[in-house]
Structure formats: structure tokens, C-alpha cells
């Protein structure tokens, strides 16, 4: 199509060329609302004398017709999947836990911690044998021994320090008998 009507034909075909184009006359095949001020009548007049544009128009009509005939819809499951996620997101946004209700969230945290402490301090359903077999007793013994050892070392250090202090005091009195 070297007639210079290529783009005007497109606008005319899709109802964007101006009032009076595709909705009436020999080449009308759609009721698309028209807009703009393109000279649709000039395109119509041109179509009568240009076979190439007529064929292009017919090809567009055929292609548009094929797309209309082969229209398809998404399965209902696709829409339902979106709606499920939308409802879940909305429910999540409304939930006090996620809505920033800090008092309730903090209270829930404290309660969870208290329950964990209770279970840790008062274990139930564990027989002495099981505790022994599990190595719990030996672990506790190790901890106890470590504590005892640390206490002994601390006492020894304290004794050493007192001894050194007395020694220094004695030396000072020798050097300066007038003091003390």
C-alpha cells in the first residue's frame, strides 16, 4: 500500500478516524465509538478506488473476526485462587496479632515464656532411670563440681591477697617505724 492511506485506514477501521466512519456505509462492521476529526469520508472514498486498501481492510476484518470467535475465558479456579489469597490477606490485615496490637502480642509472649519455664522446672513423665540414662545427672554433677572448683579458687586467691597485704604492711612498718 503506497497510496499514503495506510495509517488513516487503521484509524478508520478502529473507529478513531472521525465521525461517520466505520459505523455506517459499505465498510461498516463495528459499532466502535468514534473520536477525533479525521476525514472518514475521504477514507471511504479512497477505499472505492484502491483494491490494496480494500484487501487490507478485509484482512483486518478477518483477523479481528478470528480473535472474536476464539475468545476464551479463564477457568473459575484461577479467579477463586486470587479471591482466596485476597481474603487471606484481608483477614491477616484485620488480625490483632498482625495489626500491631502490641499489648496483646507482648502478653502472648509472656504467657508462652511462663509456660516454657513451668515445663522446664517441673518436667513430667520422665522416670529417674530415663534421667540417669540421658546423662542429666552427670551433667548436673559436672556443673556442681565446676561451681565448687571456682569457689575454691576464689577462696585461695582471697587468701593469697590477704597474705601479700600483710607482708607489705610489715615491710612498711620496718621502713617507717614512726607511722602506725
Amino acid at each position, binding site marked *: 500500500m503506497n497510496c499514503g492511506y495506510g495509517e488513516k485506514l*487503521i484509524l478508520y477501521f*478502529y473507529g478513531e478516524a472521525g465521525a461517520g466512519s466505520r459505523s455506517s456505509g459499505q465498510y461498516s462492521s463495528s459499532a466502535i465509538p468514534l*473520536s477525533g476529526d479525521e476525514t472518514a469520508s475521504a477514507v471511504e472514498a479512497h477505499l472505492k478506488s484502491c*483494491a490494496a486498501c*480494500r*484487501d487490507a481492510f*478485509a484482512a483486518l476484518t478477518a*483477523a479481528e473476526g*478470528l480473535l472474536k470467535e476464539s475468545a476464551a475465558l479463564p477457568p473459575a479456579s484461577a479467579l477463586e485462587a486470587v479471591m482466596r489469597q485476597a*481474603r487471606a490477606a484481608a483477614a491477616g490485615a484485620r488480625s490483632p496479632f498482625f495489626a500491631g496490637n502490641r499489648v496483646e502480642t507482648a502478653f502472648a509472649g509472656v504467657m508462652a515464656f511462663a509456660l516454657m519455664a513451668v515445663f522446664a522446672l517441673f518436667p513430667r513423665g520422665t522416670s529417674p532411670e530415663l534421667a540417669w540414662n540421658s546423662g542429666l545427672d552427670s551433667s548436673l554433677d559436672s556443673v556442681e563440681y565446676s561451681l565448687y572448683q571456682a569457689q575454691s579458687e576464689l577462696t585461695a586467691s582471697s587468701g593469697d591477697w590477704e597474705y601479700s597485704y600483710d607482708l607489705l604492711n610489715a615491710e612498711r612498718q620496718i621502713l617507717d617505724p614512726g607511722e602506725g
Partner: protein
Amino acid sequence: MREELSDPELVASFKGGDVEALGVLMERHKAALYGYLLRVTARTDAAEDLFQEVFLKLVHNPGAYSERLKFRAWLFTVARNAAMDYFRREGSRRALTLPQGAFAGDEDGDAPSALEMAASAEPGPQEALENKLLGERIARALETLSQEQREIFYLRHYSELSFKEIAEMLGLPIGTVLARMSRAAARLRGELKKMPQ
């Protein structure tokens, strides 16, 4: 009641917590959006996934759509981007080898050509098979369009946006969009003439 609301009003309602407003939006645009995605990807599973992806974008980030914009333009922009991402992920582009042949037609005379007659013919009992074959030829002709030409052709058909709006969506001058469509029409005409009846 919801069905009477405009698209931006439905989105605003959805943002306000009315989940069912989203259902109305989907019902309103499902045929156009799914048809476009199915045409572009040529796969029902991909079209379904992308259809959900587009609307889930609104679910997870309602602020992504501004009521100042035309909803359908936003919808097809997101759909186009999602389809491009899909192709990037898949690393595949459809390439169809087309049979070449001759399509008889009177290009110079005033008498209606075979193509003109085919486009305007009303389907009759004997014409059912011919129409089916013609449909197949048109589908093959569409496949010969360049990616840019096909994109604009499909966008115009399914989104029903004006060429000006499509040009804005694609960030192209309207002259470029119209030139591509004009070449697409010429290509369709040429391919349909070449193919055997």
C-alpha cells in the same frame, strides 16, 4: 450494587477492605485479559498463571494502581510486563514456520477479491469447512507478523484502548504505533493472498 461502580471506585472499595470488589473487577476484565495472555503466550497454563499474577499484584500491593489512571491501561501494562518476564524466564519465543503459497485475488479490478468475500461472507452449511480453513490461514498469517506488530494488534483488540493510549503505554510516538499497525495490515493482506485456499 458493586457492578454499577466504575473500575477506580471498585479498586478504592477493595483498598478499603471490600474483598468482593476485586471479584467484580476480575469478572469485568477476565475475558479481555485472559484472551490477551492466551494469545501472547499460546499456553493455557501460562495464561492462567499470569492472569492470577496480574490481579495478585493488586492484592499484595494495592497502591500499585493509582485511581488517576485508566484501570484497563494499568491492567494491560502489568499483563504485558508479566508476559515479558514469563518469556525471559522461559527463554523461549514462539517461532512458526509457515507454508508459503499463492492466494488468488483480484488486486487491480473493482470486483471484490476472494479475501474481501471471505471477510464479509455469512457462514452457510457448505461454507463451514471453508470458514474453518480460512480461520487457520488467518491464524498462520497473524504468526507472520513481527513481535512489535503483533503486540500492538493484540493490545488494540483485547484492551480496546485507543492507539494514543497504547502509544503512551508503550512509551512510543503514536506515529510509530500507527505505522506498525499499518504494516501489520499490509502483511496480513499479503500473507492471506499468498496462502492456498
